[in-house]
Every structure is written in structure tokens, then in C-alpha cells.
């Protein structure tokens, strides 16, 4: 029913297709950053021109939905009953930024209350799981067993030891509310702790660094949570918590050892997929629907297959082969099931509805890299036609980290087409180039977007459009290119691509946008990345052990903003 266009970028749609613009517009192609934020450096500037590193401020991150679910399984075991949570939001493209900047709604808080009740009830009703979670059997509210539960379960849930005052507070509250029944006290205690802000939010404000005067570093317990939620997307395991208790996560060696250990675990693969899904904006696939009458190969399961393809490519690249991650944009190697093979018009022996097989496009194929997969092509198109503007904008914004400014106000959108003859999208988009106000931005967006014109709105190869042959020629920054395959080759060598990937990973890892004083740290990461042969696993390890991930500015004092 909800046949949807990808929820495409507003600006794009305003500018796209038949529309012409009036008004002046400078399209500087500036590096991505929000309004008022300092623009980043040119990725090719020498590092010593950048200002001395100083850390950004702390954020208060709430667990994302995935983190909450993963954590609950780690704390309580599985299976857990189904429960609903408030959906995550992704300002600046990342759930972690949403979790660190948005305010929970009342319904969101209620859903936490209900989820905790439900999960704890299910676990306590199962004798074996009850014993394993509690470690003893309480006989009366406030007894020694319950005290040990507060202490040990609390430490795991809050990712830090509880103070004596906290232990007493939780214990007393459960005793008071339970009205004499030990079972009730246990249920109330666990479910309350699992909706406590100490559990739901990660308070990471750092401590003075004794080795580095004037600098604040994250504490060992804060680092345990940071490492674990970045690399595993879940709560620290016993080993990591024990290392934090021993205060080992404030040293280079300690952080390195545990980051490497975490990266060797299967959970790191799951967490890495989370990053790539946001970096490539794969959520938008969920909203892609197509009319089968118009696109005969389209199926209900197609967007899921498209998503799986990307996940397999990422996993292969980052973990199975630990290869140069720039292959993401340039390599002919992919994974297809039967319906993707049909979509791509290739023969892939062994592929079925569910089985994906590796496939290598040969040099004569038009396809190479994620920008020629169904996922990218369908996400960045309309239900009935392609969108060179959307596709070009993705390349600019997501792959190269550039910002395309919004169009000016009071645009004149004259749609008239007196001739009435069918025209190709390329012909219609000519208006963008003829009108100087449009051309300011569209000269940057449309030419790379045109390179994909041989792929229709679902990603199928086509020779013709509007009765004539497709012309997919275009350019990137003035370098003329013939088609998407040419672009793949160029992007695989473009230094802006890995610099952008580092920046996006940093945002994902820190839950906020970078600040100007972190530019040098980001540049250092990019250089390490290059030196490692652009291995993403190595980038994760470098980031996790870098000062950019381990130091923090002091909390801004309350009342500092009062003069407003």
C-alpha cells in the first residue's frame, strides 16, 4: 500500500527534474559540517598546519534500541519476550548522535518501564535462569542475597561498581515497595534497575589525567563502556569489567589489548554492520517499493536481498579478507542470490532464493562497487524514474563528505513544457545547467549522477530511455567520465573517500559531530588508515586507542548559558 519513494533529500526534490531556480546560490562544495560549525580542513593540507589537538566535550548517550536489546540479552540471557521501544532517531545520519542529543519522550520512558517488567518477569519465572542471574535465592526483602544482587547485577547493569549509598538506596526502596515478599522485591529491584538512568544512559565525563596536566581522560569504567558499545554494540563482558576494576583501561597497552580482543569476536562483525548501514544510509531501503507492473523483476523480498548483498560485501571486505576497504566503491566482487542475479542479468551458479554466492563482475560489465548495486540505485531513485540528482548528491554528501547547500528561497518552479514531446531526464535536467542559479550547485551534483543513467529505478541495466539511447556521460569535478564503472575506478583512488569514512566513523563512535580542535586527530587517523593499506579493522583499532577516543573536555558548568 505504501508504495514509497525513498524518503529522498528535500533539497534534491525541490531542485530536481523539471524545476528551475531563481536567486543566487553559492555552491562552494564545502566539507560537510552543520550550520555555524567550523568547516573542516582540506583533506590534502599538511597535518602540521592544523591546530593543536584539544578534545571535544562529553555527551550523555542513551543506549540505542539495538544496544538496549543486546545488553538485556547479555544481562539476562535469551530468549527474552518481545517488547517495543521508542524508535531511534539519526540526526546527522547516526543513531549514536540521536541517542546522545535527543530527549526521550514520555512514551519512550513508559516503554522502558514495561520492557523491563516483562523481561525480568520472564527470567525470574525460569528456575535455571533465575539462579544464574541472581546467584542466590532471596528469602526476605533486604536480605544478604538481595544485597549481593544489587551489588553484582548493579555493577553489570551500570557498568561500574555501586557506592555503598547506592546499594542501600536500591535495597531499601525494594524492601519498602515489596511489602514483605522476597520474590516481589527481586522483581521490583531488577526491573527498576533496568529502567534506571544509570543503566539507560552512559555517563562519561572523564577524570583528571595525572600524566598529562590540564587534560581529562575517560576513566577505566567509562572506557570499558566506550570500547564495548563501539566495537560490540553491547555492554562490557566480565573480562572487560574486571580490567576496568583493575584500572587497566587508562593505559595504551590496556586499551589496545582489549580493543584487539573485542575486534576478534563475532560481535564486532555485527557492530561493524551497524556502522556501515548508517554510513551508507541503508535504512532508506526499507521505504523502497516498486510497482511490479512497471518493474517485472521486482519482488517483496528484493530490498532485503539488496541489503544482504551490502552486508556480505562489508563482512567479506572488513573481516574475511581484511582488505583495502576502498574496494567498497571500486571492486567488481559482490554476493548475489537468485533474484539479484536476475536483476543484474548474470548467471550465478549455486545462487537460490536464500543462498548468496560470491560473484566477480568481469571487466566488460558495467558494474563495480556498491554504487552499482541495487541497494544504492533503488534507494536513490523515484518510484517511476531515476534521479541523477539524488544519486549525485549521495556521491557528494555520503562518499565525499561534501555539503550541498539548500536551494535559495522563493524559487521559481516553472514546469511548463509546451512541446509535449517526450524528453529524457538528461534533456530535462539541462535546465539546471542553463540557469546560472541552478548551475551553481547542480553543476556539482548532476554530472556524477548522470553516470548512473544506464541503471533504472530498481537498478536494472537499460539501453534506452524515452525512445532514445541512454547517454550516461558525466564528470566528477571536471574529469570527464563515461559511466558508473569509470566513477568506481576514480573513487577507489580518491583521497577524499577514506578521509570521509574516518570522519563518519568518528561521529558514529563519539555520538556527536567533530569540533575544529579535533581536526588534527582525525587527520592522524586518516594517515594511519592509509599506512595500514586502508584496512577498516585497523582503523577501528587505531580509533579505539587514539586520544580522540580517550580524552574529553571538562563538563560545561551549569548556568554557563544563562545570559541567553
Amino acid at each position, binding site marked *: 500500500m505504501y508504495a514509497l519513494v525513498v524518503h529522498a533529500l528535500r533539497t534534491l526534490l525541490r531542485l530536481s527534474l523539471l524545476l528551475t531556480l531563481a536567486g543566487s546560490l553559492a555552491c562552494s562544495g564545502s566539507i560537510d559540517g552543520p550550520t555555524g560549525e567550523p568547516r573542516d580542513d582540506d583533506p590534502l593540507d599538511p597535518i602540521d598546519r592544523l591546530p593543536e589537538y584539544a578534545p571535544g566535550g562529553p555527551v550523555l548517550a542513551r543506549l540505542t534500541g539495538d544496544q538496549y536489546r543486546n545488553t538485556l540479552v547479555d544481562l539476562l540471557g535469551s530468549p527474552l519476550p518481545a517488547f517495543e521501544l521508542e524508535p531511534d532517531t539519526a540526526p546527522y545520519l547516526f543513531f549514536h548522535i*540521536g541517542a546522545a542529543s535527543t530527549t526521550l519522550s514520555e512514551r519512550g520512558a513508559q516503554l522502558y518501564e514495561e520492557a523491563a517488567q516483562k523481561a525480568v518477569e520472564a527470567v525470574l519465572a525460569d528456575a535455571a535462569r533465575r539462579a544464574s542471574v541472581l546467584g542466590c535465592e532471596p528469602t526476605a526483602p533486604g536480605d544478604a542475597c538481595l544485597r549481593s544482587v544489587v551489588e553484582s547485577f548493579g555493577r553489570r547493569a551500570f557498568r561500574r561498581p555501586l557506592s555503598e549509598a547506592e546499594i542501600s538506596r536500591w535495597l531499601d526502596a525494594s524492601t519498602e515497595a515489596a511489602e514483605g515478599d522476597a520474590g516481589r522485591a527481586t522483581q521490583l529491584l531488577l526491573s527498576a534497575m533496568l529502567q534506571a*538512568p544509570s543503566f539507560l544512559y552512559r555517563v562519561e565525563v572523564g577524570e583528571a589525567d595525572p600524566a598529562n596536566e590540564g587534560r581529562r581522560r575517560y576513566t577505566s569504567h567509562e572506557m570499558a563502556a566506550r570500547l564495548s558499545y563501539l566495537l560490540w554494540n553491547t555492554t562490557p563482558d566480565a573480562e572487560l569489567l574486571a580490567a576496568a576494576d583493575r584500572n587497566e583501561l587508562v593505559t595504551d597497552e590496556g586499551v589496545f589489548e582489549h580493543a584487539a580482543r573485542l575486534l576478534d569476536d563475532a560481535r564486532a562483525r555485527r557492530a561493524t554492520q551497524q556502522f556501515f548501514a548508517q554510513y551508507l544510509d541503508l535504512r532508506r531501503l526499507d521505504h523502497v517499493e516498486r510497482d511490479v507492473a512497471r518493474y517485472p523483476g521486482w519482488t517483496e523480498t528484493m530490498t532485503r536481498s539488496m541489503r544482504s548483498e551490502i552486508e556480505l560485501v562489508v563482512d567479506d571486505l572488513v573481516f574475511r579478507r581484511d582488505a583495502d576497504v576502498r574496494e567498497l566503491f571500486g571492486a567488481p566482487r559482490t554476493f548475489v542470490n537468485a533474484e539479484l542475479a536476475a536483476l543484474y542479468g548474470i548467471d550465478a551458479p549455486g545462487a537460490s532464493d536464500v543462498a548468496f554466492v560470491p560473484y566477480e563482475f568481469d571487466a566488460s560489465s558495467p558494474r563495480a562497487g556498491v554504487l552499482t548495486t541495487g541497494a544504492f540505485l533503488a534507494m536513490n531513485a523515484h518510484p517511476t524514474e531515476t534521479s541523477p540528482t539524488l544519486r549525485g548528491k549521495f556521491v557528494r554528501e555520503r562518499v565525499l563528505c561534501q555539503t550541498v547547500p539548500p536551494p535559495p528561497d522563493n524559487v521559481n518552479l516553472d*514546469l511548463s513544457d509546451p512541446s509535449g514531446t517526450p524528453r529524457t531526464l538528461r534533456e530535462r535536467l539541462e535546465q539546471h545547467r542553463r540557469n546560472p542559479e541552478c548551475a551553481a550547485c547542480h553543476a556539482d551534483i548532476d554530472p556524477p549522477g548522470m553516470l548512473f543513467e544506464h541503471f533504472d529505478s530498481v537498478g536494472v541495466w537499460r539501453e534506452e530511455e524515452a525512445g532514445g539511447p541512454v547517454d550516461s556521460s558525466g564528470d566528477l569535478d571536471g574529469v570527464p567520465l563515461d559511466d558508473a564503472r569509470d566513477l568506481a575506478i576514480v573513487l577507489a583512488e580518491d583521497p577524499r573517500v577514506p578521509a570521509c569514512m574516518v570522519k563518519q566513523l568518528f561521529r558514529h563512535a563519539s555520538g556527536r559531530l567533530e569540533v575544529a580542535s579535533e581536526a588534527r586527530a582525525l587527520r592522524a587517523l586518516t594517515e594511519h588508515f592509509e599506512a595500514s593499506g586502508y584496512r577498516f579493522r585497523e582503523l577501528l583499532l587505531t580509533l579505539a586507542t587514539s586520544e580522540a577516543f580517550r580524552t574529553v573536555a571538562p563538563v560545561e558548568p551549569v548556568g554557563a548559558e544563562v545570559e541567553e
Partner: protein
Amino acid sequence: MSAPKKPKGGREVEKGVLEKARSFPWGPGLKPLKRRTFLRGAVGGAAIGLALPTLDAMLGPSGAHADGTTAGPIFGVFFWANGLPWHAGMGGETAGVTYPDLWTPTATGAGFAPSELLMPLARHRVSVVTGLEPKTEVPPNPPGQSDGHMRGFMVAMTGDRIRPEGFDHPSHTLTALRPTLDQYVARHAEFYGDQPSRFRSVQIGISEARFHDYGHWNAISYNGPDSLNLPILRPTQLHDQLFSVPDDLVALGRRARMMDAVMDDARALQTQLGARDRARLDEHLTHLSEIQRRLDLAAATCETPARPVDSGDVTAKLDAMSELLAIALRCNLTRVFSLMLTSPATTHVFSNLGVTDGLHKTCHDGLWDRVRVTQAHQMELFARFLDVLAGTTEPTGTTLLDRCAIWGTSEYSEGWKHGTSEMPVVIAGGACGGLRTGVHAREPRGNLCKAQLTLLRSIGLSEASWGWNGGETSDVFGELLG
């Protein structure tokens, strides 16, 4: 002059409000049933776990309080996406084609003849205000803020502009500076007083299509910057939210008491945080105390409807959601709602109307005839929603719609150029006598905030003015007020 001089300020205002409230026929609001009130009423607590008594039974046969009052006005927002079909009056003339105005009625005043698009709503004697536009000013940088999706939406929902930071980022991180109308009312001291309904407000969404994933692109209700109330999008979820109360009410009371410990934990954390995060946690604390209150009030459900079946069909979904909301309103589970039929700049494809593309793109493709059909359909759905409210009669003999003051609007006047002149404004319901129905007020180039202030006054709020950053007004459309 000889009367003793009273100190200026709060007290006087409060007294005025109280007098005003008393002068309204519906009185100062129903006192909700406390869980403990009910438990005391049950024989020795034996009724725990049995079917809950209906509110009607507790209120007596007339459904009214001993003093003859009922539960007070209901405030609602009905939002549809992408405005109206454009016409010359909106500046929508091009290439020699002049499209007619299908919205503005020819005559003003009471009993006007409805226009083509208002025809479905005429059966509910809605009022319309035409000619209005946002007066709120926006900074020139970054560009794009005065676009209808930004300025039009925010003024239509908050009376203020957007937060400038972030909206020009590729993610279009758009947010409000202040609460939207529904939240403003739900937290207003004069609306609920110290006796809020179990839910201060309920947010409902019908179409799940959305343009972006953050900001008003998928929700129309804000508490403030980066603080969204995402709508409930499925009938089963709405049912569970409103009506799912476990039998064991004593256990709920214990859960409520245990919330004290959760709140203590929040307060302890706050001392470590900076201003912004402290405010976020403060809001969380407010939510916790609301939930605690709700757990304590759990017995006050007067009717538990059957759990509906979820459907992807917009009309079926709207029907199911409307029925659930009507029961909740009749039972005084809430008195504030927002219903987002389609989200701003919707990508919803009205394939049932033969439209092949998302509505936002259809507007930009200049397909006026399709926009005409689509927006007529959205108005029919609006009327269909009002049918349910008008068809729900209360024990006092009035209908829910008689109690409602509904703000019906969209994010701009038209979706082709994102114009904001001639914004669509529908005011539905009688607001317990606070509103006159079936009136067309027209003020060319008038201030959109004036209509909002009118609506706030109609439900008994004593706001002196409304609107920000150039949109301020203390004027109302007196002809709409009862």
C-alpha cells in the same frame, strides 16, 4: 479606586482564570479516579483482578458530576501533508495556466457555502480562517529556512521559527524551538490544572511514509528542541498504550512506588552533567513522575475495546485509530491529541487514487489535477475522523466533537512552490461552547498566530499573546469564539 490595592502578578491572574473556568458550562475539569479510591470502594479489596467498573457507573446515571459538569474541552491537532492545490491567489500562476481556488469559500461569516475541498467537512460545520500566513521571521543563513517545509510548518505548529542549526545538513536535522500546540496545551496549568488525565496527550500517525528520518519529517509533536513525541503508528500499539491495564492493580501500585528509586538515580546522575544533558535528564524525570502517576491511576479505564487488527490501508487504519481515540476521550483517558494523517513532505503514494508517485514529488511535478484529487481525499479522511467524534455521544447528551477544539492544518499552503500565503486553517468542534461553528473568517495577509491564539482562548486559556520572532499577536478572531 478605594478598594485595597492588590499586588500585581500571579495571584490576580489566577483568580481571573478560576472565575473564567467557573463561568464555562463544563466546569473546571473532572477529578480522575485514584486507584486507591476504587480499591476502597471494592469490598475488602476482593474486587482486585475482576472486571473494572465503568466510569459511568461511578459518575452516576447521567455521567455528570454532582455539580453537573463534564470533563472539559478536548484539544486536538489534525495534520495533513502538502497543503492545497495551488492557485493564483497563492502565486501559483504559470505559463498562462490559471488554476482555480478550490478552498476559499466565496462568502464569509456564519453559514457560508462550502468550497469544493471543504465540502466533505461541511457536515461537521467546521470553521475556516483564510488569507493567513506566517509572520515569523527567519535568519537569512543558512538559506532555505523560509521554505514552507521549515517556516510554514513550524509557525503552523509552534508559532515560532525552526532552530537554524543543523537543518541544512544532509540529514535535515530539523527541530523546533518550543513545544507544538498540543504539548503547549497539555502542559498548560490552566488546561488540566492539577488533575491531568491519565495521559496528558496522545500522538497518532496514520501513513508511515516519510521524507527523512529525523525532525518533523516523521512527527509533528515536539516538547522543545530535539525532544519529539513520535506518533503511534499502529492500532494495536495505540490500543495497548491506552487500554492495556493488568488485572493486578496492587502490583501496579508497587511498581509506582519503586519509581521513586529510579527517580533518585536520575537526580544523583544530574549532578555530574552539563546544562544540556541535565535538561534532558530533567525531562526524563518529568516523564517518570507522569508514569508513576499513571500506574497509580490505572483503575480508571471505563471501557476496554477489543484489540484491533493492524492494517496497512490508510482508511482502515484511520477508522481503527479514530475509534480507539474516541473511546479514550470519552473515558477521559486524555484530553489532548494530535493526529498526523500524512507527515510533512510526505512520500506517500496514493495509489488508491491512481497517483503513481509520492505526494511531495507529485506536487513538484506540477500535476495539479492529481494534487486536487489527493487533497480532496485527505479532506474526506479528515471528515471521516470527525464522523467518529461526532458519532460518540456522552452521557450528558453532547458529542465528543462538541467538546473538541481541533486545529486542522498543513505545513504550507501549496506544495508546488512551497508557498505559505493563504495557509489552510480548519477549526473543528465546539470547544464546550467556546467556539462558534460553521464560520468563515477571512483576513488577507493576516497573521497565522492570530488563529492559534483564538483557538487557545476558546478552550479557556488566558494567553495574552501568541507568536514569536515577528509573529507576536494579541488579536483573536472574535467571530469564532462562542
